[in-house]
């Protein structure tokens, strides 16, 4: 696949990516860490430590209510995406 076609494909995939709603996020919010599921504004938990939030978020994956966890950095950028297999 050429680089140009990869960019085109990335654009096409992003046009539907927001519909999936199958990831949980550990995201910084006002100095704390929150868990939320895509497409749902409801906060599932608020924690002072990111590791604690990540453990709770992984439980959501293990229970089958999310496909993966997006672990964000304190600046909002993505550090990594975890699944039960990772």
């Amino acid at each position: 696949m050429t680089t140009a076609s990869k960019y085109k494909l990335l654009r096409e995939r992003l046009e539907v990516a927001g519909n999936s709603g199958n990831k949980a996020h550990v995201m910084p919010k006002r100095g704390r860490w929150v868990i939320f599921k895509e497409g749902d504004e409801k906060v599932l938990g608020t924690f002072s430590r990111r590791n604690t939030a990540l453990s709770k978020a992984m439980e959501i994956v293990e229970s089958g209510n999310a496909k993966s966890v997006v672990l964000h950095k304190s600046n909002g950028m993505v550090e990594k995406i975890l699944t039960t297999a990772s």
Partner: protein
Amino acid sequence: MSFNSNVFINCPFDKAYIPILNALLFTFIYLKYTPLLSETTSSGDSRISGINSLISKSKYSLHDLSRMQSTKKNEISRFNMPFELGLDFGCKTYGSAEQKTKMLFILDKEKYRYQKAISDLSRNDIGSHGNNPEEAVREVRNWIRKIKAVQIDSANKIWNLYGEFTGDFREEVDALEFNQEDIDNMPKSEYCDFIESWLKSKM
């Protein structure tokens, strides 16, 4: 591009500022504005004429002065951001009737630091983000709410959506095995296109 939806963004482009810039670009696009950055000016023009062109065709502007002060020994202050803010004020003051309607928002990292550096700015719309992208989103969202006087989504919602976008973007970039250098150094105009593509899935 429409004058009434264009936002000129005057900010640094260094690596440390990227998390704030990405969050601001997402916020403006989500709120139906078109961000214009000086990195997108044509290389055929001088940089200053390119900046003047962006300023003249933008009703709104965001000027982030958070990096105007030198932080390392022997490094002098950075004047580009205050200079471009001055150009924008000039356009608003001396420009056409349409340009006199321009609305400027100034961001800094600390609330009252600008009073020491540019005291002439007192009584203008000024916010502070504390070098925190979430606070930058909140400040911009609240500024838009104030000037438009219509109900818009909360900063919390926009911040969560930005998180969703970054997660999906990372997932797709990894799946397509993009070179990380290409992603990190992508022009911001291209990054904005990807934000717009992703937002289509949320409509």
